[in-house]
């Protein structure tokens, strides 16, 4: 993350939309850069990679984007757990496409972090060594097929509630990545809902499976919005920087209000006897969240913390020889004289060269 300490750069108007500047930028003081930055944020302009930004803003973004990227790739595990057992070919195609989308989201997000001077390998090291976190929700196990639906409906639903405001985040590359992520996430959310609907309308065993999954995933989903506002350490500054636009509790309430009628349409019960419509507030009241459970999982004591991290490390370690070989081949290619065209390699595909074709249509 060399550029975290790089000298301040002239702020370039927007993403190159402004008039081109001739010659060297005029000398500016730190205070003037800060004033420009503050004015841009206040005017809802986007901060772009080459713009000057406070070190703490950069560090906050790297931390948040990395955590988000890590959540995407760890989040592949609980759902990939059911790819080989998907009960119909249609569901299997949908699930594989979804898990693939998550890998794609990981790629956009690591890319966004790299625009801030971070390095993907370093960020992965931090994930593997436990120095950076991922969303705690993925430390719960997927025990039945219905969990795939509950994750889509509730976990992706909560993620969308959190992420839609990020499409207006002050940092341009993150905001743009989130536009694409949110579109795909809303597909996933509808697919999850539809999966649960099929189970809810199915046999008694399928119905019970759906209810059990909702019982287990409801409270952890509410925890995805983070601690209550009064206990949230990063919130105030992120709000001022327009990285964050709504408080944890506001978003949580919004999510509950969306889910209650959807649960009713699904014919499933949310496991909270205190859920009641509060006409005065115009919102649903809900029962207390077990924050001790949240804290324990954050500390690493959740049902799957060790397992998720272990699988991630193993995949990385087992793949080390592949990455080394790809790098060695690329280095040899660079040092070799140009070969005659008779056996020219076809269009490269695969690691670090070409992204395979983008998101699949599958069954969407």
């Amino acid at each position, binding site marked *: 993350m060399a550029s975290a300490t790089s000298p301040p750069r002239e702020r370039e108007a927007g993403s190159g939309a402004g008039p081109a500047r001739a010659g060297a930028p005029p000398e500016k003081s730190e205070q003037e850069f800060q004033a420009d930055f503050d004015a841009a944020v206040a005017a809802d302009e986007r901060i772009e990679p080459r713009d000057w930004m406070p070190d703490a803003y950069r560090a906050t973004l790297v931390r948040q984007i990395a955590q988000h990227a890590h959540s995407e*790739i760890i989040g*592949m*595990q609980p759902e*990939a757990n059911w*790819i*080989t*057992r*998907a*009960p*119909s*070919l*249609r569901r*299997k*195609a949908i699930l*594989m*496409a979804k898990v*693939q989308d998550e*890998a*794609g989201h*990981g*790629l956009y997000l*690591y890319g966004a972090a790299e625009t801030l001077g971070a390095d993907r390998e370093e960020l992965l090291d931090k994930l593997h060594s436990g120095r950076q976190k991922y969303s705690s929700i993925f430390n719960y196990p997927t025990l039945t097929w219905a969990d795939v639906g509950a994750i889509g409906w509730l976990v992706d639903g909560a993620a969308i509630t959190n992420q839609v405001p990020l499409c207006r985040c002050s940092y341009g590359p993150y905001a743009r990545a989130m536009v694409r992520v949110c579109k795909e996430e809303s597909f996933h959310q509808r697919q999850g809902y539809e*999966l649960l609907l*099929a*189970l809810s309308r*199915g*046999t008694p*065993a*399928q119905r019970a499976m759906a209810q059990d999954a909702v019982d287990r995933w409801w409270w952890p989903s509410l925890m995805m919005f983070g601690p209550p506002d009064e206990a949230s350490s990063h919130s105030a500054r992120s709000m001022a920087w327009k990285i964050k636009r709504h408080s944890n509790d506001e978003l949580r309430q919004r999510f509950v209000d969306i889910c209650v009628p959807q649960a009713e349409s699904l014919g499933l019960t949310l496991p909270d006897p205190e859920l009641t419509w509060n006409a005065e507030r115009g919102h649903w009241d809900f029962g207390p969240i077990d924050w001790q459970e949240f804290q324990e999982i954050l500390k690493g004591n959740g049902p799957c913390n060790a397992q998720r991290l272990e*699988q991630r490390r*193993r*995949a*990385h370690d*087992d*793949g*080390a*020889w*592949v*990455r*080394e*070989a*790809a*790098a*060695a*081949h690329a280095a*040899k290619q660079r040092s070799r004289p140009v070969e005659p065209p008779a*056996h020219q*390699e*076809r*269009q*490269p*595909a*695969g*690691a*670090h060269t070409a*992204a*395979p*074709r983008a998101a*699949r249509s*599958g069954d969407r």
Partner: protein
Amino acid sequence: MTATAPPALALLPPADDALVLSHRLGEWAGHAPVLEEEVALANIALDLLGQARALYAELRDELGSEDEIAYLREERAFRNCQLVEQPNEDFAHTIVRQLYFSAYQLPLHHRLASCVPVAAKAAQETAYHLDHAEQWTLRLGDGTEESHARMQRAADALWRYTGELFEPIEGLDIDWHGLRAEWSGTLTDVFGRAGLTVPDGPGTGAWSAGAGRQGLHTEPFGRMLAEMQHLHRSHPGASW
């Protein structure tokens, strides 16, 4: 090349090939050596699953719905070749398996394109699969001593499953000798550029294992099917 559609049951072996290899590739999800390969392997798996479903649709009158065909047949009724059911092992095995298979599937699709509508579209996908496997074969064959050794090991281990690819499938009236020659040409070219040795095997007189087309499979396949079919079979008649 024939312009008249083959009998539907002749499409079962290629359909099962696609389903089974798709399943094996799906097992990589969350385990790939680099994030780009999570996307690439899933892409190939999805293409193959799409091909299998399109071919099963042609078999509806004979064998029932796609899910009945995939989930309710016993191991002995599957007509896929043994190559595609082989476990993923390391990334080298997965790449070599894909190279052997895609180098066969591409000329097969070209030959079927005039009479099996799905084959024309599938050929475009398969060209990409072959390209992906070829590029990785070049990287890994050339990369490091370890990657070279792993690739040669995988190439040798899987070679014995390639012989049955060229046993004519009843009802598919195509030029099997030409297909085999094309396959051998691709393999010799790619292995040559990757610094790998084409193994001794069917082409050089060694005995070839393989009777998947007759429903005789290898031991790992039964476990694969057990996992794949378990949930569907646990809820008879349910829809998902």
